């Protein structure tokens, strides 16, 4: 039986290092190629040796698809394509293709230049890797080869994020990447049509959370920032350069404007301006409102938000700083955090998810004494706030997407095992579909039961539509045909055409049965009685009395002769071909029972 096999190399019951292998109808596709932010050793990249031990990856994989530019979805790509070696196509949307190399370079710089690691991918490798990328449009059907096609759907989450449908024949898988089912200040909501995939692979970061309304969270956020600034404190907001950062900037910009606030807002790293520029050029990927008004006022040109300089961190007085990266695991955000952590007037707001092992994760789980590099202990006195602005679907959103796409099976990735378990039960209960949650390296096999498309000759289709009792459109029609299988083509034709095409003659099989009837009347009177009897019983059939004295029922012929010896017995010759076997057989048994007492 045809099957779809799924093996997560990363993101199986875990967040980070997304990398999922899918085998569908003989095609192998790798979904995402991410790195893990919680590790600095081999575990940070997926174990590609799982795919093939000694063959070339290119021979084994038909294509690689990257859902969006976050490093936990594309961070291992140059390592995979240039160091392990893959030359096949890599698909991603245009904004992802634009932004991905910048984040990769940033990541490379932090790892190699700052931490001094060797044996890491180089700038040239990033460039060579990007040359293998094919950019796709939303909803465009991309023919990877003759059988394999992929199609991108809008996913919200970050600029250019997409969900992908992978389809071979009538079997299909949808991979969501990370998605968001509610529009935010700069992006729209994820959308998919009722494509009924055999399998939906969904992220489940917020599997158990049902978030309150966005407005409340925004008000809460603004209130906390405002209060801190009012009392002269500094606010640190660790973010990734692209994504939440822009949403929160829009939020603060409008708030500062409305409240006429003076405290400075800074955005760290030179990435910012560039990042905002991407938003301007890819404005068609943002939400309806921004797109509609961009000619009058471009939402990504900020008046109140200025570039940050390292020296500003020591300035007295209140300020708000957006700094990268978002999980406080390295770079400028961590530096500023160390400077400000000791003052209880200050506040750090974590607007997104932090993976295990990062400083962000530690302070969010309540740790207040942190061991930093060189055994130094950092005491955290500043206020720590967590406010989920990361644009993942919550439990309600995940259920909503399942309702939209109507998959036959669901598989959860990119989440924590315990939370997945809960969601899995909920999905199985509500939708009565199987739900899986494989761990990394564990293969899930899903059996599909595809119907088989064949070509039916128009003649046969029309004939079948025409015959049959009363053309009742709703009533299913029984049809008979011959399926010709030659090479890989399947054609359903009428039996006559099949014979003709094969150069064969029809063999006619005919039966003639002698039925004896006791009836003293004259032959033609007997015939008339038989005729009336049949006419009465076989209401749906064409029963005819021909001028030559015979009767036909459809194509079955009935003739009467007198018995050579017994005048009181008539012999009915009932003659039919094999095609009318059922009716012929029925008629002889009916006539054998004799004729009803004459009513005439």
């Amino acid at each position, binding site marked *: 039986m045809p099957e779809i096999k799924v093996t997560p190399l990363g993101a199986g019951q875990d967040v980070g290092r997304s990398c999922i292998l899918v085998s569908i109808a003989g095609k192998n596709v790798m979904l995402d190629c991410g790195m893990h932010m919680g590790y600095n050793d081999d575990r940070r990249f997926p174990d590609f040796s799982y795919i093939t031990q000694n063959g070339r990856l290119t021979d084994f994989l038909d294509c690689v698809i990257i859902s969006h530019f976050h490093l936990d979805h594309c961070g291992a790509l140059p390592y995979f394509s240039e160091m392990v070696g893959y030359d096949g196509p890599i698909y991603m949307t245009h904004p992802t293709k634009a932004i991905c190399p910048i984040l990769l370079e940033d990541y490379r710089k932090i790892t190699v230049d700052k931490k001094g690691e060797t044996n890491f991918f180089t700038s040239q490798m990033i460039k060579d890797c990007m040359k293998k990328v094919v950019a796709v449009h939303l909803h465009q059907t991309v023919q990877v080869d003759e059988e394999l096609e992929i199609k991108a759907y809008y996913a919200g989450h970050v600029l250019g994020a997409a969900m992908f449908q992978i389809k071979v024949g009538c079997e299909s898988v949808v991979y969501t990447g990370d998605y968001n089912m509610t529009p935010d200040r700069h992006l729209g909501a994820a959308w998919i049509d009722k494509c009924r995939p055999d399998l939906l692979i969904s992220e489940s970061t917020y599997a158990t959370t049902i978030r309150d309304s966005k407005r409340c969270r925004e008000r809460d956020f603004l209130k906390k920032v405002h209060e801190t600034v009012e009392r002269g404190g500094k606010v640190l907001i660790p973010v990734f350069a692209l994504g939440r950062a822009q949403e929160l900037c829009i939020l603060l910009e409008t708030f500062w404007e409305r409240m006429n606030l003076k405290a400075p807002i800074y955005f760290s790293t030179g990435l910012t301006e560039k990042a905002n520029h991407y938003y301007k050029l890819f404005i068609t990927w943002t939400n309806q409102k921004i797109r509609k008004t961009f000619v009058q006022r471009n939402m990504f040109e900020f008046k109140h938000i200025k570039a940050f300089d390292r020296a500003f961190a020591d300035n007295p007085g209140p300020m708000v700083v957006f700094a990268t990266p978002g999980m406080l695991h390295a770079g400028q955000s961590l530096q500023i955090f160390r400077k400000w952590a000791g003052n209880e007037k200050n506040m750090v707001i974590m607007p997104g998810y932090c993976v295990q092992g990062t400083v962000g994760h530690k302070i969010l789980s309540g740790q207040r004494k942190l061991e930093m590099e060189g055994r130094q202990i950092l005491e955290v006195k500043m206020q720590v706030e967590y406010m989920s602005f990361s644009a993942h679907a919550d439990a309600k959103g995940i259920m909503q997407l399942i309702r939209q796409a109507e998959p036959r099976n669901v598989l959860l990735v990119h989440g924590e095992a315990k939370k997945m378990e809960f969601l899995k039960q909920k999905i199985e209960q509500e939708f009565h579909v199987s739900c899986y949650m494989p761990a990394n390296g564990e293969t899930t096999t899903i059996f599909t039961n595809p119907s088989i498309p064949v*070509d039916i000759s128009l003649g046969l289709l029309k004939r079948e539509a025409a015959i049959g009792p009363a053309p009742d459109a709703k009533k299913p029609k029984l049809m008979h045909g011959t399926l010709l299988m030659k090479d890989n083509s399947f054609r359903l034709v009428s039996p006559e055409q099949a014979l003709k095409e094969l150069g064969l003659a029809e063999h006619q099989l005919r039966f003639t049965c002698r039925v004896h009837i006791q009836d003293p009347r004259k032959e033609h009177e007997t015939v008339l009685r038989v005729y009336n009897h049949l006419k009465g019983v076989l209401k749906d059939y064409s029963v005819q009395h021909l001028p030559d004295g015979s009767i036909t029922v459809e194509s079955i012929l009935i003739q009467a002769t007198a018995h050579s010896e017994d005048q009181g017995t008539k012999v009915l010759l009932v003659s039919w071909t094999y095609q009318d076997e059922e009716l012929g057989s029925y008629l002889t048994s009916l006539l054998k029972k004799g004729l009803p007492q004459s009513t005439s």
Partner: protein
Amino acid sequence: LFQYCLSGHPTLPCNVLKFKSTTIMLDCGLDMTSTLNFLPLPLVQSPRLSKLPGWVLKDGSTFLDKELKECSGHVFVDSVPEFCLPETELLDLSTVDVILISNYHCMMALPYITEYTGFTGTVYATEPTVQIGRLLMEELVNSIERVPKAQSASMWKNKEVQRLLPAPLKDAVEVSMWRKCYTMPEVNAALSKIQLVGYSQKIELFGAVQVTPLSSGYALGSSNWIIQSHYEKVSYVSGSSLLTTHPQPMDQASLKNSDVLILTGLTQIPTANPDGMVGEFCSNLAMTVRNGGNVLVPCYPSGVIYDLLECLYQYIDSAGLSNVPFYFISPVANSSLEFSQIFAEWLCHNKQTKVYLPEPPFPHAELIQTNKLKHYPSIHGDFSNDFKQPCVVFTGHPSLRFGDVVHFMELWGKSSLNTVIFTEPDFSYLDALAPYQPLAMKCVYCPIDTRLNFIQVSKLLKEVQPLHVVCPEQYTQPPPTQSHRTDLMVDCQPPPMSYRRAEVLTLPYKRRYEKIEIMPDLADSLVPLEIKPGISLATVSAVLHTKDNKHVLQLPPKPPQPPASKKRKRVSDDVPECKALKPLLSGSIPVDQFVQTLEKHGFSDVKVEDTAKGHIVLLQEAETLIQLEEDSTHIICDNDEPLRVKLRDLVLKFLQKF
């Protein structure tokens, strides 16, 4: 497969295709050449235009002198300009299911169709097509509405009167169908019916037909369309270009294997080479400015103007024009310049790469930043303060009948220092200039039409090899003014089928197959039999379900169990429910083996007689006779059903079922 042809203009097409059970409109172009018969709408009171004499008939009657004015020997209608709509009577347009738009120039009649015909379907177009189409419509509505005209002439349209008018008014077609411009609410209503699509997106229509837009290389978001079912493919090629300008290149490969290829929107100036024209444009512009004159470029607010600005960006410094101001005046100038920068995905490769840097794809961003190019919504307001001469002005409308261009024609027409350069190919420049004669200003004609020329067409057709080509009749003969140029027509084998306005064509194609799906459980129950090497067959008896034009075959339901109740059955209960046909049979029965089989099954008194065509097998005791011939078998027996069935099954063993 029928094609209803609603427009006679080859580059502003409007066709309706009846394909399977769907009705598909391909483009709805608006023929605006009708406006050339009208007087220009001046933004500022024009003494010259208001003093034009009324037109008097030969017999001296003056009843038309309010409606018709004479200027330099030409007669013009003094009224709000009107447009020639696509045919609306040829078929009931409320039955149109979908409208497919190929590019923003070919959607200008959309509000007339969607708002006045009872249309309830969906319109499909790409995002740039819709956004720029909206700008074109906005500009059109704006330039007509801002010059309210009290008079609406209609007397001249009377058939009896029209006969008396001089050419070209006398020969104008369908004048009773000419309509005034639509309004903004109508534009918005029409555009709200559009669904956005991307290149190579497969769109299912009622399960019967699939339509797909393909890049056509002509303008931002311009598309050709594939209309296909599983077995038929119609390609609609409209406004395509193989030149490398700013849009994504044309997708030719996907047009292969078409049964029918409808070819419209070829170049209107087949003899002019666009590259040469751009060169001429630049040098004429530079010469005029150097001599202290002004340059007027009547143009649309989007399209070729982006390429012209890009050329000028590279040219102005070397030509010493860096101090000459360039003005782009249109109510949608700003939007057009902004929109052009955000459609990276729809641009050619070079421009896409720029966005990855990230830099704006078009260099006019830099021209604006350095103040070399300035844009204004109209000549009123800021422009009048900033205006410096000599200068270059890009403004619409290319017909010279409305828009800010009318003002500059009046302003600069008197001086031979100034030049008007025509780049848009949609209007004859002599006709456009007629109401401004006599004119001192220089006129240069550099039409830039990047659409396919006839050499490219014949190369394309050789490449994609459609079975049949359908095109407007204009393409099947040389242009009227160059009747010797037989190279300026579509040449292919078989010769193209041509159409003209208000014609209905029956397109040639023969469909022989349809897709049907066999459900898995039915597929499992089939028993394939290899009949010849490599060819297998299986007889299929199944229930046919048809829903939404999709056909599915399922296992027939199991015959219901005979009712357990002892209720007496009526005779008619036994009547076979369905008239299911048994399969056909094939093969022949070797008499010796058959007799052996009979004997094996307990018939001991088998006797064989030879006949002319075969044999007769007699079972004497059972009074049964079996005639065996090459292609037939006839069993004649008494009414002994078990015996007959036994014999039947023995015979069937020798035969193959179909």
